[in-house]
Structures are given as C-alpha cells and as structure tokens.
C-alpha cells in the first residue's frame, strides 16, 4: 500500500531523511517511531505530499507522492499532530467543507456527515462551534473528518497526544472497528509504547535512517528487553534530543530564499 525506496530530504546541508526504504502492506497497522527530530514528521509530510522529497521515490496506494500528488491526496486521510480544524465553524460545517473539497457527491454527503458524527459520538454537538470543543472532542472530529472521503490509507501523526486515557481508549476502539470493517491501512507515529505494541510492525527511525523494522514481539526478543520502551531506548540511546525551532527575525523570514 505504501512503498518507499531510498527516500531523502535535505534542507541545504542538513539531511533530515537519508535514503530510507520500507513497505507497508494493505490493511497493516504500521508504527513509525523515533525520538524527536529523527525525521519522523519529515517522512510523514513527504508521504502526505506536503513536502517534496529531494531524492528517492515513494508511492502511496500506487501513486507517486511527487508526481501524482492529487491522486495520492484523494487516497489518504490524515489526522495531524496539531489540530487542523476551523474553530470558527461548527462541527458539521467542518465536515461539509471537507466533503465538498474532496468532491463527495452531494447525495452521499449528508448521509456520510450523519454517519461520521455518529461514529465519534458527536451527534449532539453537530451544530456547535468547534472553538467550544475540548481537546478530545476536536481529535474525534478530526478523525471523523479524515474518513469522510473513504481513504485507503490513514496517517495518524501522534493522534492521541495530550489526551486522557478514556479518550485514547475510545479513539483506539474506533480505529480497531474501522480496520475490521474496511481493511483500512494505518500509518501511525507515536511516543506511547502501548500503542506501538498494538502495531503489526514497527519501524524505528533515528538520525534520518531506519535502524530497525520488525514486529513488536521480535523486536523485544532481538534486543533481549522485556518492554518495548526498553528496546526503544537501547536502540536510540538515552540522550534527550532537542528539536531546533525555526529561527528568523521578521526581515530574515520575509526575504529568505526558499530551497525547493
């Protein structure tokens, strides 16, 4: 469902992703792990067509992420790390915007809206402005939205970050049901090891390279660790990574040259 061959991304002299290769099978729950700044988000952004690779090749649902961007976009759903809703619109307006922009046929649209809201238990909140929602409600709404156009692959970039255990469990129940019902392929990035544990296979990326690709069980065996977290720390080391924030005074930002 996803194939990645020697995929690279560099920003000037800095290589964020240094030629990685892997494959995700249809219907798989694929975990993509790594410390902060290891190249996780860059990879996800390239697979989602938000960033252009500087080398190598990747296809999603059979389409090239650099050359067939709109085809890829139609085939994928995304739940971003940070909220991406219009919080001045209502829940149902957010969903309708999505359905219209993905060209869900008019007759289908209202039916799917109902269905999506029911799926994430937000039916009573359909006409409430999103600004009034809690973090968990927003996440559920985003999940519902990402499924409106029936994607073949769903990207989840730390989908349960900052949510309470109840909401996390709820979201995972939805995802399990979806996989069972539609055979959806899930591409997950997370820092929660119990979520990683539930994956069919895990890839760990560090310093822009994939250092291991294995089932959670075999990974623990291979590194002789009881928990996945211990294995993860053994593989990626104990040092804390500090992600560098984007620098720039106004003038520098405004007049910068873009390397793309």
């Amino acid at each position, binding site marked *: 469902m996803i194939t990645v061959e020697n995929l690279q991304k560099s920003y000037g002299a800095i290589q964020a992703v240094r030629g990685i290769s892997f494959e995700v099978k249809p219907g798989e729950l694929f975990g993509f792990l790594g410390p902060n700044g290891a190249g996780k988000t860059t990879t996800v952004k390239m697979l*989602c*067509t*938000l*960033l252009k690779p500087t080398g190598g090749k990747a296809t999603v649902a059979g389409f090239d992420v650099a050359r067939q961007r*709109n*085809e890829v*976009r*139609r085939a*994928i759903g*995304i739940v*971003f790390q*940070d*909220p*991406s*809703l*219009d*919080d*001045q*619109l209502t829940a149902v*307006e957010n969903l309708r*915007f*999505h359905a*219209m*922009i*993905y*060209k869900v046929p008019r007759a289908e649209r209202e039916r799917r809206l109902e269905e999506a809201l029911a799926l994430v238990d937000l039916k009573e909140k359909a006409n409430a402005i999103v600004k009034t929602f809690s973090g968990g409600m927003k996440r559920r709404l985003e999940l519902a*939205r990402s499924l409106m156009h029936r994607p073949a692959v769903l990207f989840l970039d730390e989908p349960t970050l900052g949510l309470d255990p109840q909401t996390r469990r709820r979201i995972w129940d939805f995802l399990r049901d979806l996989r069972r019902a539609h055979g959806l392929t899930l591409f997950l990035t997370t820092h929660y090891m119990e979520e990683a544990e539930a994956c069919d296979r895990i890839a760990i990326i560090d310093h822009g390279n994939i250092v291991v690709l294995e089932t959670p069980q075999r990974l623990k065996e291979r590194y002789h660790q009881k928990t996945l977290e211990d294995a993860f720390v053994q593989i990626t080391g104990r040092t804390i990574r500090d992600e560098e924030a*984007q620098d*720039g005074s*106004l003038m520098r*930002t*405004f007049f910068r040259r*873009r390397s*793309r």
Partner: protein
Amino acid sequence: MDLQAVCVIWLRDMKRFFRDRTQIVVGSIRPITWLFFMGYGLSPSFRGPTGTQYTQFVLPGIVIMAVLFTAIQSAIGIIWDREFGFLKEVLVAPISRSSIVIGKAMGGTTLSVFQGAIVLVLAPLMHIHLSVLSCVESFAVMTGVSFSLSSLGITIASRMRSFEGFGAIMNFIVMPLFLLSGALFPLRGLPPWLYWCVRLNPVSYGVDLLRGSLLHETQYSPALSVGVLAGFAILMIASAVWQFNETDA
C-alpha cells in the same frame, strides 16, 4: 482550475465573516470615523478647484481605504490558518494551489467590496448624487482594487510564518499604500518627490477613477487608470499564485 474548489474556499470566508457581526461593525467604524472627523476637520482649509467640498473630495478615498484594509485583513487570514493548523487541511486536499488562491482572492474581493459599499452609501450625506451609472462604475472600480489588494495580501501572507510581523506589514506596506494613494489630498501643488510617490502607487489610479465616477473630477486619464488597474490586478494574482505555490504548512 477547479470551480467547485474555488467556491468552497470562497464560501468558507463568507461564513466566517458574516457570522462575526463585530468584525463587520469594527471594519466599518475606521473608515466612517475618518470620513467624518478628517472630512469635516479639514473642510475649512480645503479649496477644491470646482467648488468641491473636502468631505466630497475625500469620500472616494475613504471607500478605497475600507477596501484596502479589508482586503489585506482577509488575506492575512491565511496566517491565522497556518497558526491554527487549518491551512494543512487545505494544502493536503486534492485541489490545485491556484484554485485555493483564486478562491481566497475572490473571498477577499467580495468582503472588501461589501465594506467599501457601506461607505459608498453615505455619499448622499455629503451631497454626492449616486446615479445608477456611477454606482455600476464604482462597483467595477472597487472590484478591481479589491481583487488586486487581496492578491497582494495573499502574496505577503504566503511569505509570513507568524503573526509577529503583522504590525510591520501594516506600517511598511498598507499605510504607505493608503497615504500615498491621493485619497486624502490632490496631486496639484505637491513637492515632486511626493507627487511621484503617488503617481507610482497603483492604488492612486483606483482612487482617481472612483473620484471620476462620483465627482466627475480626474487627475489621470481614465483609460490610463483602467489600464494600470488591470495590469496591477494581473500582476498581483500571478504573484499570489506563484508565492502560494511555494508555501508549506
């Protein structure tokens, strides 16, 4: 280009704008206070060539002011969308970047013409007669200016990462465009450097056309003004499409 996508982007801007009544009121207060306070304040010291009152002279300029600020503000919404993440939702959608830009520019145009029209209907209070023809002409001019300035705003917003620079944009770009548009003073008698600043500002051609249709007084030839405005609009939308294509979430 993708007409449905353009409409959806446009529709969202309409919904957000007309839901927020305070924004409409606040947007109208600035030009209206300028019109009354500046208009009547400077009236005694202004002598128009054909007996025009300053309140009459300045009204077309204030219409353009309302248009200018609304257009930029609406385009700056892109930075908000970036800040609150909604831009990502738009950028990963299976639609072309140019339809997003056109939708945004049309949204900004509609809202700016609306705000400009709120000032325009005050014209009879200043003893300016609004004929059907002058209304049609005024709408055409407002549309052209709005579209160009919305596109300029999109160009700027595409290059900005955060809101910190907003004040600088207002002071370095929007205020000079307004103050040097001939909205507040006529060209005649200006020192040459100032005269040329105004002449080189494309917005001044919009002001002049509007003054022509409302007061039948122009400083440039109308054909030249129409040409400059059309060229400005094409240049700005092209640069908006170009810069937005380069943007990432």
